[in-house]
């Protein structure tokens, strides 16, 4: 990131920007800035990708069956454990 004061000023808004929930004026300001700041464009793209990769990774967690069984046993609910 270069030394533009503007880069720093906009940094705190980038998270809301990638969520698409930033208010219009700031959003336009960011887009104007991105048009001629290559470094900030990279930060935005990689920030976006970071969030995307974590969304993807969430789907990959599965609970091992023995963990589920031990949980029901610990809660004295093993008679209600459905196969």
């Amino acid at each position, binding site marked *: *990131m270069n030394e533009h004061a503007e*880069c*720093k000023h906009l*940094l*705190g808004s*980038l*998270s*809301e920007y990638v969520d698409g929930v930033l208010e219009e004026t700031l959003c336009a300001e960011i887009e104007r800035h991105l048009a001629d700041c290559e*470094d900030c464009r*990279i*930060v935005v*793209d*990689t*920030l976006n*990708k*970071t*969030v995307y*990769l*974590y*969304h*993807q*990774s*969430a789907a*990959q*967690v*599965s*609970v*091992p069956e023995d*963990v*589920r069984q*031990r*949980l*029901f046993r*610990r*809660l*004295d*609910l093993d008679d*209600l*454990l*459905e196969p």
Partner: protein
Amino acid sequence: MSSNTNVETINLEALKAGDRAEFARLVESHYELVYRLAIKMLNNPQDAEDVLQETFTKAFRHIGGFDGRSSLSTWLYRIATNEALMFLRRQKPGQISVEEPQGDDEELQKPLEIVDWCCLPEEELMSAEAQRYLDEAVSRLPSSLRAAFVLRDIQGLSTLEAAEVLNLSETALKTRLSRARLQLRESLSSYYGKKLREEGKRT
């Protein structure tokens, strides 16, 4: 709440009266959410299992006091998040960085890693090694930022829901989320940047 559970079909009256079958249904519909939260917060399957068991043990004990002001899922998330945070505090009492209050007004650190790794192939971005790196990067976040990030970006809660779980204003939640994301972007950029350089050498 953005879970795919049938929480609406759970009979709250029966639950509060101590009906075991109803509680079993609550466990069945929520244990995956709680486990995922715990494992992403703690990055260790054994610790995650402890938090999972402790969360439902507490839920069973305290369900009589559930006042319905939040949804059942939010209530469970709150217990689980507190358990995970308590676990972290016990585990690393000497590590100040975990306990350090996150001054939400503190100046953001300027991004240092400026490398466009978005073009890496999907199998590289999502490899098992990358996955481990992603999890480790989360576990290096200060716990308050970690909780905000895990609830919002991994569990997929809305800003409002995540703020409710953590008892924060939406603005405070957004600030923590922004800090967490920028720190993770920094970590991932250093990891994938290295991969990109390796790839460049091969071709």
